[in-house]
């Protein structure tokens, strides 16, 4: 009792010492979430446009838009915020157990391991409520009607210059017409969603990409827009924890078999982001046209400690189907793989559209001990295609999946031991391939955290929806060891670093021998005040790649990519935010010449009046070639993510206006332009533009109902 009293006292002391006026003190005003800054921390350096950042960003955004209730959040939910160390989570749970529910956010100051910095980081994404989920709720339809988090979103975008794909076709020497896009250069997105955390989520999305045509042709399964998605998800209906109908995503264990868009991988957050959270069934409302499940999924709680999930998904995906000419061939019809772009602009794209039927079913059991320190589970995923998958017969494809059926089974675990969290997953796929990920996150001292992760995926390990931490984009043909460190040696300083070493025991595309590499990052961050941040980051990646030295028999040689980033972010007043970013890269193949890339960008964001916010950037870039191209994160309309590749010499500008017209209506307008020096044309193929400029407009309206 005296301990409880002490904590309460400490909490109240913190409350009175806080700078917020006493009148406001009872209700902590949740600060606006600075997602752009969070993204800067999570995605340390964007090196490719192949990774679906847009999807990851949107998932994060959805996640962070519904604040986590610190009084009811489970250990797994607290971990999935990626902002708290394991020691802090344990301390919070212990505090809740000893003292009861938190009275206010200020009480966090009285918990061991919570310094002001962590509290400020978490505050935008968390609340303290005493409400218990499943309390006196009315009928579902009433709750849906009363829900605030209910919005319709319409987005339009278009490149202003004429691209080759939209011009009249040429006639080739054989008299055939060259390929052109079927539709207009407009891109349209319509999305509606109503959701409440731990209760329900309904929504639908329709999208037409640039170059795609609106067409009503049930024969080829085209109904207006090119892509539709819809979901219906309810949570916490007694023993039924989650029921999802329509489009959904799944994440279990370390994501070796099932991983949703909810992961960021190697970045400047070197500790928490390498572990995947066991978040289970989640609604899907994004626009990646292939990486989700369509059907039904349900999670039941069998007892207080045991949960079971079953799911089935049935959908058609894009694939180029070929017919075998050899009557003795293993398969009459086969495809070289699932096409992932989701673009259906040309006649070839349309011919491949939805040509492969994919049936996925499986389930998961997870046991979580009563004190939530230990959890373990079993996952099975069965994938069936209606036509065989046969990759092109190249040596690097020798161990790729072939056939129509794949079954993968895995076990995963997670255990808290003092200040360390041990976790892992091991899986086997049909054909004998296996993969394993095991790691430790440890709080070595109150200001030092460390992480270690070992992974090994054999060259014949096959999963289609797995995405555990790896250097490759898929979990195959890789082994590696990752070590991360994060220190706060002084109050305003933070040093984070990681070192990752990897090996690929079989050949890869454009790497004609077993290869290896390593990658390290060091970031020193200084935050002189609550609202400003200054950091310097260095990164080196050495990876083998076929050299240009002998074009007939290429030999992999080490290629080295060094990059430096200096970033300054400040909000000198509530209405003004300034960001300066300097980014440079050196790229070298073996002992070849060193090539360089450079970007200097200045951003300004001004709240002209409380309802209107303007952001703008001016950036200069200069890179020697495509290998030294630069990706710089840009502000975009809500839910969109923009990182255009910059190469050559030129300037990049954008301006973005966000106007809150009323409580219901928000409007975004964006214009961006890349101006290249010394380029007569931009892009290639059907995307080619005549002239040195590429500009784009984007408009988005959100109506909150």
């Amino acid at each position, binding site marked *: 009792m005296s301990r409880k009293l002490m904590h309460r006292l400490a909490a109240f002391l913190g409350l009175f010492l806080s700078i917020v006026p006493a009148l406001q003190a009872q209700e902590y005003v949740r600060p606006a979430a600075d997602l752009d800054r969070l993204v800067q921390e999570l995605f340390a350096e964007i090196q490719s446009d192949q990774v679906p950042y847009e999807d990851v960003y949107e998932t994060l955004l959805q996640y962070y838009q519904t604040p986590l209730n610190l009084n009811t959040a489970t250990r797994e939910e607290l971990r999935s915020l990626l902002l708290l160390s394991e020691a802090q989570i344990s301390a919070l749970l212990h505090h809740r157990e000893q003292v009861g529910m938190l009275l206010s956010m200020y009480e966090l100051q009285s918990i061991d391991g919570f310094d002001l910095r962590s509290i400020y980081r978490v505050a935008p994404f968390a609340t303290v409520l005493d409400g218990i989920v499943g309390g006196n709720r009315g009928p579902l339809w009433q709750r849906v009607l009363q829900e605030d988090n209910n919005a319709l979103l319409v987005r339009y975008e278009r490149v202003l210059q004429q691209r080759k794909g939209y011009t009249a076709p040429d006639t080739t020497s054989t008299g055939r017409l060259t390929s052109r896009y079927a539709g207009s250069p407009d891109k349209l997105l319509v999305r509606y969603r109503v959701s409440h955390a731990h209760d329900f989520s309904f929504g639908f999305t329709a999208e037409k990409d640039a170059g795609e045509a609106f067409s009503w042709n049930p024969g080829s399964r085209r109904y207006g827009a090119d892509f539709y998605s819809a979901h219906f998800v309810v949570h916490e209906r007694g023993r039924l924890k989650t029921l999802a109908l329509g489009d959904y995503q799944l994440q279990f264990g370390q994501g070796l078999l099932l991983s949703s868009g909810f992961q960021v991988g190697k970045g400047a957050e070197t500790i928490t982001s390498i572990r995947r959270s066991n978040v289970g069934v989640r609604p899907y409302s994004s626009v990646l046209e292939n990486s989700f499940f369509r059907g039904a999924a349900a999670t039941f709680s069998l007892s207080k400690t045991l949960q079971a999930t079953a799911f089935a998904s049935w959908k058609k995906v894009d694939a180029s189907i070929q017919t075998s000419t050899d009557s003795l061939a293993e398969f009459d019809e086969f495809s070289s793989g699932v096409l992932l772009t989701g673009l259906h602009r040309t006649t070839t794209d349309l011919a491949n559209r939805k040509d492969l039927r994919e049936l996925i079913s499986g389930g998961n059991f997870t046991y979580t001990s009563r004190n939530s320190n230990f959890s373990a589970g079993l996952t099975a995923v069965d994938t069936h295609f209606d036509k065989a998958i046969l990759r092109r017969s190249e040596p690097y494809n020798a161990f790729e999946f072939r056939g129509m059926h794949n079954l993968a089974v895995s076990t995963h675990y997670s255990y808290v031991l003092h200040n360390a969290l041990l976790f892992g997953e091991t899986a086997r796929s049909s054909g004998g391939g296996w993969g394993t990920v095991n790691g430790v996150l440890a709080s070595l001292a109150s200001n030092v955290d460390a992480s270690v992760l070992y992974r090994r995926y054999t060259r014949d390990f096959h999963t289609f929806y797995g995405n555990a931490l790896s250097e490759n984009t898929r979990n195959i043909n890789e082994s590696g060891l990752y070590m991360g460190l994060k220190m706060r040696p002084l109050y305003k300083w933070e040093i984070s670093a990681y070192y990752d070493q990897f090996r690929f025991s079989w050949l890869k595309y454009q790497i004609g021998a077993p290869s290896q590499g390593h990658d390290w990052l060091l970031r020193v961050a200084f935050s*002189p005040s609550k609202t*400003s941040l*200054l950091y310097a980051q260095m990164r080196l990646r050495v990876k083998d790649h076929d050299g240009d030295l002998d074009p007939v028999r290429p030999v992999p040689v080490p290629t080295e990519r060094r990059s430096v980033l200096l970033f*300054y972010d*400040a909000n*000198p*007043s509530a209405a*003004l935010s*300034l960001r*300066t970013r*300097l980014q*440079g890269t050196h790229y070298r193949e073996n002992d070849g010449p060193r090539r360089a890339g*450079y970007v*200097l960008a*200045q951003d*300004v964001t001004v709240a002209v009046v409380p309802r209107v916010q303007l952001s703008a950037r*001016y*950036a*200069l870039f*200069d890179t020697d070639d495509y290998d030294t191209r630069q990706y710089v994160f840009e502000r975009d309309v809500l839910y969109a993510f923009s990182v255009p590749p910059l190469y050559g*010499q*030129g*300037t990049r500008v954008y301006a973005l206006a966000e106007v809150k017209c009323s409580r219901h209506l928000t409007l975004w307008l964006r214009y961006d332009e890349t*101006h290249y*020096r*010394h380029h007569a044309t931009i892009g290639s193929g059907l995307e080619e533009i005549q002239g*040195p400029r590429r500009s784009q407009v984007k408009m988005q309206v959100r109506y909150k109902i």
Partner: protein
Amino acid sequence: MRKLYSCLCLFLLVSGHTLLAQGNGPGVRGARAAALGNSSVTISDVWAIGNNVAGLGQLTQPTIGFYAENRFLSRAFNTAALVAAFPLGPLANGKPKSGVVGFEAQRFGDKLYSEQRLGVGYGYRGSLVSIGARLDVLQVSIERLGSRRTAALSLGGQAEIIPKQLVLGAYLYNLNQAKLAEYQDERVPTVLKAGLSYRPNNKLMLNLETEKDVEQSADFKAGIEYRLLEALALRAGFATLTEQTTAGLGFQAGHLQIEYAAAWQTVLGLSQHLAISLRLDAK
């Protein structure tokens, strides 16, 4: 017209890459900046009108100045500039309430080839942030071939990350990418500079800066200023792109400020900079 530009190209070629900052670029203003390897984007004196217009906002008294520069001991590479800055409105918290307006007239070159500039700038200081904007009318004249005129818009900002100790500055020169001629798409250089200045006490200043012209390699510059006595400052610096090492002195005599700088380029030799500025009593 073709002739004019081939002549111009030849000139730029002959003058080598040490003249990158010229050709209607933002250039160097004041011997203080010159002595610091031109790492001047965070500085707020009267010369800020050309180095980073945001710095103007901190002037409290009307100031006029004269600047002369000779490059490589050649008469053809002389620059002369006259500047003036006037605070607007009464002083509040040690800064003019309505900002500071500045004017500049500059000339580079000789009778054969010359560049003229007329600039007007405005700087405003908030609590920890200063912003500024500037408009230049630029003219290039080549004897017997005529002249060309264009206008360039520039923006600047300075922010105190740690008040009075750590300052960040950024300056964007010619954001409209003003065109001098259609031939070979010749444009006035668009230059973005950003730098940090660390001032642990009121005697010492350490500057680091990067400058990028769209069409040239990036320049990295560093400078140090040490105020030995109240009236005497010692300075040194270097710039990587132009491979220049610089050093200089600054004297304060009442309202008069006299500065001198010398810069050494291994191949091309010595350049000298002299600046005099006078603070006038506010009315």
